[in-house]
């Protein structure tokens, strides 16, 4: 059977996905489910979306041939520069799409969850663009750790609500956003930041991010003579940038798809976010996927040096691609990600986000031929991680 990157009508990718929602969310999810495809496939939506991606986000993002990095690894390496997007990461591809959708659904109030603040900033940005009320739930621990992004969101007009429940990080922020949605079902649209949550979110967010691999095809054709690379490397938290980078190649088995999870201190330790490497199927945030959990089914708090990979679950699409052997996933530890970031800065003059540094660390794990074409999805820029870089590079 063909492996596809599209969910079935119930939101399943094989055994993963679904919509495990309490009845309080039924109307919202049902409205989205019945209307999202018609809306996002309409000409009116496409025109506005593509125009904003071009003139507001700055797409297409360049595909850059990284000469010195290529020389170092003895192969041909291209970087898909999502770090050059407005707000500094791929997150805005999704928020632009969802904000247009929310307007079409007549929603006046937008909520979002955020971990490091990248998705929060991308959401606050498009809410400012459309003049919509914006509330961002952020774990109290993250509010403290990511003060700069909190300031940015507030400057953009969003209200940032520190979440004090649980471990006060991304998972808890997501719980609180879902509770808000239960309490405000009619006025509000919930812009989920990754390919997680109940159907149709994983499928919808994947479609919005798929512009990444769509552009890659024509850019590779122009630069290498072929649309198809040999490898695509991307980092995986919830997995939205990887889903976008893989999307148009999933059915083409000649292209090897490789994901990097946040290994933290090591997938074998308690301090990890490697849910594909070490998780078991479970249900969190209304979707069935691989999940870090105890034998009793309690969700384990994840850890990664990168706040964007610090999620105990993963998008159901990746659990499926893993189960079917269509994509391979590696656990990349903090130290290897830091090393890869440093190398990138020294060889190419690009400061990657810590998340993207996990994808770069994959380069060292692979055995490439000299004529292979390798695309690394550089999902975001590293400004937000400056403090970590300064501290950790100094320690060396």
């Amino acid at each position, binding site marked *: 059977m063909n492996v596809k990157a599209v969910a079935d009508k*119930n939101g399943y990718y094989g055994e993963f996905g*679904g*919509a*495990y*929602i*309490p*009845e*309080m969310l*039924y*109307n919202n999810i*049902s409205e989205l489910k019945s209307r999202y495809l018609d809306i996002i496939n309409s000409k009116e939506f496409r025109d506005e979306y593509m125009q904003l991606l071009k003139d507001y986000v700055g797409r297409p993002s360049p595909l850059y041939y990284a000469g010195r990095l290529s020389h170092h690894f003895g192969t041909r390496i291209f970087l898909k520069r999502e770090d050059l997007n407005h707000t500094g990461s791929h997150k805005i591809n999704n928020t632009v799409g969802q904000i247009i959708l929310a307007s079409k659904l007549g929603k006046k109030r937008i909520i979002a969850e955020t971990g490091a603040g990248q998705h929060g900033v991308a959401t606050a940005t498009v809410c400012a663009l459309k003049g919509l009320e914006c509330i961002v739930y952020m774990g109290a621990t993250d509010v403290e750790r990511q003060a700069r992004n909190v300031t940015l969101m507030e400057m953009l007009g969003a209200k940032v609500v520190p979440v004090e*429940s*649980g471990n006060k990080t991304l*998972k808890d922020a997501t*719980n609180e956003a*879902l*509770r808000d949605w*239960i*309490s*405000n*079902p*009619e006025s509000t649209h919930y812009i989920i930041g990754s390919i997680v949550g109940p159907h149709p979110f994983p499928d919808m967010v994947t479609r919005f991010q798929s512009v990444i691999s769509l552009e890659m095809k024509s850019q590779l054709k122009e630069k290498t003579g072929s649309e198809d690379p040999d490898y695509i490397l991307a980092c995986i938290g919830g997995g939205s940038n990887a889903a976008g980078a893989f999307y148009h190649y999933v059915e083409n088995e000649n292209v090897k798809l490789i994901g990097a999870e946040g290994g933290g201190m090591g997938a074998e330790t308690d301090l990890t976010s490697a849910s594909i490497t070490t998780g*078991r*199927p*479970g*249900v*969190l*945030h*209304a979707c069935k996927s691989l*999940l870090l*959990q105890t*034998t*009793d*089914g*309690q*969700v384990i708090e994840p850890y990664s040096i990168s706040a964007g990979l610090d999620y105990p679950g993963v998008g159901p699409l990746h659990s499926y691609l893993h189960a079917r052997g269509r994509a391979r996933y590696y656990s990349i530890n903090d130290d290897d990600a830091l090393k890869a970031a440093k190398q990138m800065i020294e060889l190419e003059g690009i400061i990657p986000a810590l998340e993207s540094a996990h994808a770069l660390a994959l380069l060292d794990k692979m055995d490439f031929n000299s004529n292979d074409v390798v695309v690394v999805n550089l999902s975001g820029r590293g400004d937000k991680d400056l403090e970590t870089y300064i501290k950790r590079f100094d320690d060396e």
Partner: protein
Amino acid sequence: MNKIIKLFNQKSRNILSLFFTAGYPEADSTTEILEAIEESSADMVEIGIPFSDPVADGKVIQDSSSKALLNGMSLEKLFEQLNVVKDRLSKPKLLMGYFNPVMQFGVEKFCKRCSETGVDGVIVPDLPPGEYLAYRGIFEKYDLLFIFLVTPGTSKERLKEISGYASGFIYAVSSYSTTGTSGSSALKPEDVSEISAISGLPVLIGFGVKDNETFRQACSISSGAIIGSAFIRSLDNSPHGIRQSVSLFVNNIREEGD
């Protein structure tokens, strides 16, 4: 006959169901609370299975859930506790909790243990009809009633769909909120009549029912109500022990108003 069905056959008004979280305030409080409820004039009890991420719950139940987990509570322990007291309990019992702990325990094993320990029904708020379908046969095999929630926003069409799966009673959520909020009920008498007429089942109202007044309001339009957060809060404040505290709470709720 299933004890829940029997209860509704015998009684159609003023039914009081109490919800508490297993393993709270202490790991072994479960049995004591159950015995206290047995002695009280409450009609039914819902035992919450603690979960790390209770998205449909407000602060009180969230906190009780985290504390219960810290106390080392698990489904295995809960069934052990139920096994100890099952012969002393005659009132209908339901387990209520999120799907993941049940899924990890194993749905069939869960249902088997429920039936062995005198559990009559189950409420899993994040297993809606579409996903429940895959497991329906197992719940039915063990004669467990699977209770569904409806909300003030539930359409007639959806209600018909839910009615195709529902048994025992309908759990009507009173407002657009998580559990334990103080907001007023958005359910109108005609909503409840409609739920009852379409489903052919009695209706209990939950979420936001917290005292004598809100209980009487709920009873005036339905068969009764479920009290969770307010009951859990009352357990926190039990200087003379859990038994006395439960008895006091239930008497206050039951007190005839003027």
